[in-house]
């Protein structure tokens, strides 16, 4: 495995995992979703995680997002050991430090864009006026200034994903985790979303992206390939050849 360290940004380490494993017990059988993953991610990186279906990408993302706890291994988020955090602390980290973007958008169907984006601010205890102003601002930033009172079913897929991105951004998180954010969108809309993510990266955000698609992964500045729960390669830039089984 070849790593070109010279291209790496030198910001502080946000995510530091070492030898993480995750087993799922399915009755008699043990599914080893992750089998020892070590990874460091610094501030303002833009990483694509690729790999075949079932290779453990989503499992890794959930781990990074403090939604799931590893079976073994060490995870430090912003220098704090995640294993030592209790449920409320994990919730607080998810609320303030991590912005999730899902393939299926996961918006509250009966709430307007504004109310959807306000949700993390409510959990952060921000007062209503600032909450609304902030949510409206972020929605305007993602180009939905004129759609703040629309409900999800009154928006296109791309617009819904923009709302979801606004929601992920609203608390000013350390990292944005996007698990196949373009998976439910056509390629043109997907490109628009990738443009938005590119802008976020340019303005200093840290982005971790899971995708199957090469042209999507090509937007990232670093590519991690997973296979069978292990990191197969970790490269600066996009290295399409390595998506194939490595020869020698």
């Amino acid at each position, binding site marked *: 495995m070849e790593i070109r360290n010279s291209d790496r940004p030198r910001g502080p380490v946000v995510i530091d995992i070492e030898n993480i494993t995750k087993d799922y017990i399915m009755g008699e059988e043990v599914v080893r979703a992750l089998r020892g993953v070590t990874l460091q991610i610094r501030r303002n990186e833009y990483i694509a995680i690729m790999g075949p279906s079932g290779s453990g990408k989503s499992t890794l993302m*959930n781990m990074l997002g403090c939604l799931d706890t590893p079976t073994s291994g060490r995870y430090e988020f912003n220098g704090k050991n995640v294993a030592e955090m209790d449920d409320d602390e994990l919730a607080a980290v998810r609320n303030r430090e991590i912005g999730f973007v899902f393939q299926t958008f996961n918006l509250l169907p009966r709430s307007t864009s504004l109310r959807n984006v306000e949700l993390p601010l409510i959990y952060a205890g921000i007062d209503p006026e600032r909450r609304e102003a902030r949510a409206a601002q972020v929605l305007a930033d993602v180009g939905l200034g004129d759609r703040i009172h629309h409900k999800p079913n009154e928006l296109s897929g791309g617009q819904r994903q923009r709302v979801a991105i606004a929601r992920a951004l609203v608390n000013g998180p350390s990292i944005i985790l996007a698990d196949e954010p373009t998976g439910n969108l056509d390629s043109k809309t997907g490109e628009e979303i990738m443009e938005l993510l590119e802008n976020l990266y340019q303005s200093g955000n840290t982005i971790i992206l899971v995708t199957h698609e090469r042209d999507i992964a090509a937007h990232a500045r670093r590519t991690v390939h997973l296979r069978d729960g292990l990191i197969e390669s970790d490269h600066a830039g996009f290295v399409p050849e390595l998506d194939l089984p490595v020869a020698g």
Partner: protein
Amino acid sequence: MKRFLYEVSESWKIAAAQMRSNLTRSTLTALGVIIGIIAVTLMGTAVNGISIGFDKSMAVLGDDVLYVTQWPWKPVDDWWNYRDRRKIKTEYAETLNRMISATPNSNLVVAVPTSNLMRSVKYGGNQVDNVFVLGTTSDFIVTSTIDCTVGRFFNELESRGGANVVVIGYDVADALFPSESPIDKLVLINGQLFKVIGVNARQGTFLGLFSWDSMVAMPLAAFNKYFSAKTESDVRVKVRDKTRLADAKDELTGLVRRVRGLPPEKKDDFSINEQQAFKSTLDPVKNSIAIAGLFITGLSLFVGAIGIMNITFVSVKERTKEIGTRKALGARRRTILLQFLIESTALCLLGGFIGLAFAYLMCFGVGKAFPSFPIHFSVGLVLISMVVSMLTGLFSGFAPAWTASRLDPVTALRYE
């Protein structure tokens, strides 16, 4: 703290939206609570009514009056010990009054004799049977809640002279004089004519307990003149300070012993009663009616609560993915718990509110149709019903809300 408030207000909004978007389902589920609250509230009004009826009947006795009687006002096992007691004589009252005025700082005010029997009362073609005919003195008004709305009670002059005058109860007046004023009319009791000088205010009858509404009062001197037959007599004594009832009772016991000429070694051969004694006999009856009634109607509310619990479970199941999303966005366990608790509580409160409105209308209707039916709707009852609905909501929402709050975020997000 502030965050908690925002979360609560957010949860209320979500709950309202949830109810609106599942209108049929919410209404049907709330129906269980509506019926439960109607049942409990109606039972509550009935219990309230019974209680008020009891108290009203008790009030006739007065809470600052002691009754000197042959029989105690409580069930006795050894009735033979009381049967042979000497009768209480109305003349005691005069002697007692002399003793009271001779005692400095007496706890007693005045003794009033009463004698009574049942007779028919007639006027023209109308007749009322089984009227409680009472002979007493003009001091009687001091010891009782009697209140002449029309006319007056007889005065000391009439009392001493034994004038043929009567004060009649509301129901008696109503039956004998359906369309004219009873005042100054002559009624026939035991073949004698008596002039009606007053009508007592309506008191209402309750469960056949004694009521002034079906009585007739006349001066004792007149009573003794015409009714030599077997009569029941007792002496009632007004107490100066009802907070010192026990002292007054002791004093009165001493006085009556002197009147009766009882030597110190002999036990009392009379009873001194007060309203409280009667109350403590009746209260357990009242309370068991209340408990049994509320328990039975409470069951219907319980069934309603199970309905709410069920629907909240469904709601949690349906919104598993939403719960996962909320957790990913930073909702803590208690946030989720609170959200579903508020949803079930909102549903119950809505049901409770509607149920209460129906119950109120029903009470109003019943009250109009059957004025004597003991039913009483109060502000306290409204508050209690709302509190009960809220508790029902918390109770029925707890299990599903707890389940929701414990969901593993990843599992919840994966849920399809």
